[in-house]
C-alpha cells in the first residue's frame, strides 16, 4: 500500500434530526443516514459505493463534498481536513472535487444555455473568460461526445443521455482531481448506461481522475471500480477489491445484491436460481 490516498474518510456520520413542534421545533428522533463509514481512495483509482436506495450513499457523497454538514467524522482530501470547513474556506477546494448528479433532468438549470452551464464554473473560479472560455467549453463538449454547436442550446433540447454528458462536461470543466458520481447512469436506458460508463472510464485515463462511483446496481459498479464498498443502513458492510467482493462475497447483503444482477446466459441464470432455492 504505497499509493497515496487522495481521499480518506474516517468514521463519517450524518444524522438528520426529526423535528416536531408547533412554534418551537424540538428534536424527537434521528435518521441515521450515514452511521460511521470509513474508506479511502488512492489517487487515480475508483471506489464503487453500492447499496439499495436509502442506504445513505447519496448522503455520504454530499457530506464528502460538504454540500451537507456531516455530524461527525473526518474527511481528508490530499491530507487536508475538510470536514466542518466554512463555505468560504471550502471555495478554493471546490475546484479539486466535482460531482456528477443522478437526475439529468434536475441537474441542469432549464433557464441557462449549455455554454453557460458548462462555462459558469470556469468564469466563477476566474479560470477563463471571453473567447477563451467559449473555446474551452466547446472543446469540452466535443470531448464528452457532444457537438460544439450545442453551445447555445437549452437543456430541454437534449435527451437524458446527452444531458448526462453535459453534466459530465460541467464537472470536468474545473479539471478536478476527484469526481463524485452519484448514480450517474441509473436514470438512463441500459444501452446509454454503457456509453456513459465507457466515457467516464476513458476520461479517467485521460485526465488521471479519481472516482467515487455510486450506484445501486453492483453490476454497473463492478466494471469501472478498483474497490467496492457495500453500504447497508448507513454502514459499510463489506469492503474490498472489486473482484473479491463480486466473486467471494462475505456478507449476506452483498450476496443478495449480486443475485439481483441479471445474467445474460439463461442456462447460468437457471443454475443460480436453483442454487439459491437449494440453500434456503
Amino acid at each position, binding site marked *: 500500500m504505497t499509493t497515496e490516498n487522495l481521499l480518506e474518510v474516517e468514521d463519517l456520520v450524518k444524522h438528520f434530526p426529526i423535528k416536531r413542534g408547533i412554534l418551537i421545533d424540538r428534536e424527537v428522533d434521528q435518521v441515521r443516514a450515514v452511521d460511521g463509514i470509513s474508506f479511502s481512495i488512492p489517487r487515480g483509482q475508483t471506489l464503487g459505493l453500492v447499496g439499495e436506495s436509502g442506504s445513505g450513499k447519496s448522503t455520504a457523497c*454530499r457530506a464528502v*463534498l460538504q*454540500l451537507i454538514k456531516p455530524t461527525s467524522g473526518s474527511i481528508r482530501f490530499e491530507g487536508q481536513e475538510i470536514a466542518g470547513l466554512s*463555505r468560504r474556506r*471550502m*471555495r*478554493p477546494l*471546490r*475546484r479539486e*472535487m*466535482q*460531482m456528477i*448528479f*443522478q*437526475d439529468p*433532468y*434536475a*441537474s*441542469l*438549470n*432549464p*433557464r*441557462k*444555455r449549455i455554454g453557460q452551464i458548462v462555462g*459558469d*464554473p470556469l468564469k*466563477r*473560479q476566474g479560470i477563463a473568460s471571453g473567447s477563451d472560455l467559449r473555446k474551452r467549453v466547446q472543446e469540452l463538449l*466535443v*470531448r*464528452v*461526445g*457532444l*457537438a*460544439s*454547436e*450545442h453551445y*447555445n*442550446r*437549452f*437543456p*430541454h*433540447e*437534449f*435527451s*437524458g*443521455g*446527452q444531458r448526462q*454528458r453535459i*453534466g459530465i462536461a*460541467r464537472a470536468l470543466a*474545473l479539471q478536478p482531481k476527484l469526481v463524485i458520481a452519484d448514480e450517474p447512469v441509473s436514470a438512463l*436506458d441500459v444501452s*446509454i448506461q454503457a*456509453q456513459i460508463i*465507457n*466515457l467516464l472510464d476513458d476520461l479517467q485515463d485521460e485526465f488521471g481522475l479519481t472516482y467515487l462511483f455510486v450506484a445501486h446496481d453492483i453490476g454497473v459498479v463492478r466494471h469501472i471500480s478498483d474497490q467496492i464498498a457495500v453500504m447497508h443502513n448507513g454502514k459499510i458492510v463489506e469492503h474490498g477489491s472489486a473482484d473479491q467482493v463480486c466473486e467471494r462475497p462475505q456478507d449476506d447483503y452483498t450476496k443478495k445484491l449480486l443475485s439481483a444482477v441479471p445474467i445474460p446466459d439463461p442456462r447460468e441464470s437457471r443454475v443460480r436460481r436453483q442454487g439459491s432455492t437449494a440453500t434456503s
Partner: protein
Amino acid sequence: MAFDPRPEAAVPAGAPGGALPTAPEGVSASDRGPWYLAYKRFVRNRVAVAFLGLFILIIVFVLAAPVWATHVAHTGPNETHTLEKLHVGGEIREVVTPEGKPIGPQLFGAGGKFFLGADSRLGRDEMVRLMYGGRTSLFIGIVSGLITTIAAVILGLLAGYYKGWVDAIIARTLDVLWSLPVLLFGIALGVSLAVGGLKIGPLELSGGSIWVPILVISIFTVPYVARPIRGEVLALGQKEFVEAAIAQGAGSGRVMFGEILPNLASTIIVFFALNIANNMLFEAALSFLGAGVQPPNSSWGTMISIGEELLTTQPLLAIIPGVMILLTVLSLNIVGDGLRDALDPRAKVRLEAHAGMVEKEGTAV
C-alpha cells in the same frame, strides 16, 4: 408542431467516441429558448393578445391626457367651471345649472370641451379627469405592483433559500399580515396617513401624496405574492442544479439570483400582471371610501365616489370610470392568465388538448 420542429430524441443520445452527428437540425432551431416557446404559445392565444391590445390602448389613452387637456378641452383636471357658460351649436348652456346639476356629455358639440360632461357642481371636465384619473390609478397599480413584486421576490427568496429561522420570521410575519382584514386595515392606515402624513427619518410623506395609497397597497399585497414564490423557491432549492452550483463554489447570492431567480421569472411575470389589476381594484376601493387618492386629485375610484352622489341624475359619471376599471382589470387578468398558460409548461398540455392537437413532447421541466 409549428414552433418546435425538433423532438427531444431526434438526436441519437450520443454515439460512443463522440461520433455525434453535428447539428442535424435546421439553422433556425439553434437559439430557441424557453422564452421563444412561451412567446409563440402566447401569440397563439388570440383572446389574450386582443386584451393585451386593449390594455395598450388604455395606456395610450391615459398617456394622451395632457394632449387632450391642452388642445381639445382647454382645461386642466382640477380646474372648476361652475359659473361658466358653454356654446353648444347655436345655444348657450350653463356648465352647472343653478340647481347644481352638471352638464351631460357634449361629445364634440362644444369643440371637445366637456366631451363627457362635467363631473359635479364644481364643473370640472369629466373626460380630462377620466384621463388624468386613469394615470393616477394605473400609476398606483403599476408602482405598488412593482414594489410588491420586488419585496415579495426578495422575501420569498430569502425565506425559501435559507429556511430555518429566517423562514420562520418572514413566513410568520407574512401570515400575520395576511390574517388582517385587508380592506379595513387599509382604510384605517390610509385615513390616518392621509390626515397626519408620515415621517420616517429623512422620508416625509404629506397626507395628500399618492404615495400614501401606494404604500398601503404595497404592504398589504406582499404576502399574496411572497408566499407562492417562497413555495417555489423551496421546491427549486431541492433541485440538483442548485447543489451543482454550490459544488462549483457559488455563494448564496449567486445561487439565489443567478440560479433560482431565472426560474422564477414566469411566476413573477404572471403575478405582476395580476397584482397590478388587484392593486387597481384596491386603490379604487380605498379612494371610493376616501382613504386613497385625496381630492382634488382624481382617480377612477374617487370619480366613482363623486359620481355616486349624482347617480340618479347623471349615472354616466359613476358608470364610465367604473367601466374603465372593469376593462383595465379584465384585460390585465386575461393577459395574466394567457401569460401563465404560455409560461407554464404544464399548462401547455391543456392548451394543445383544447386545440385538438396531440403533442408528444416530454414534459421535461
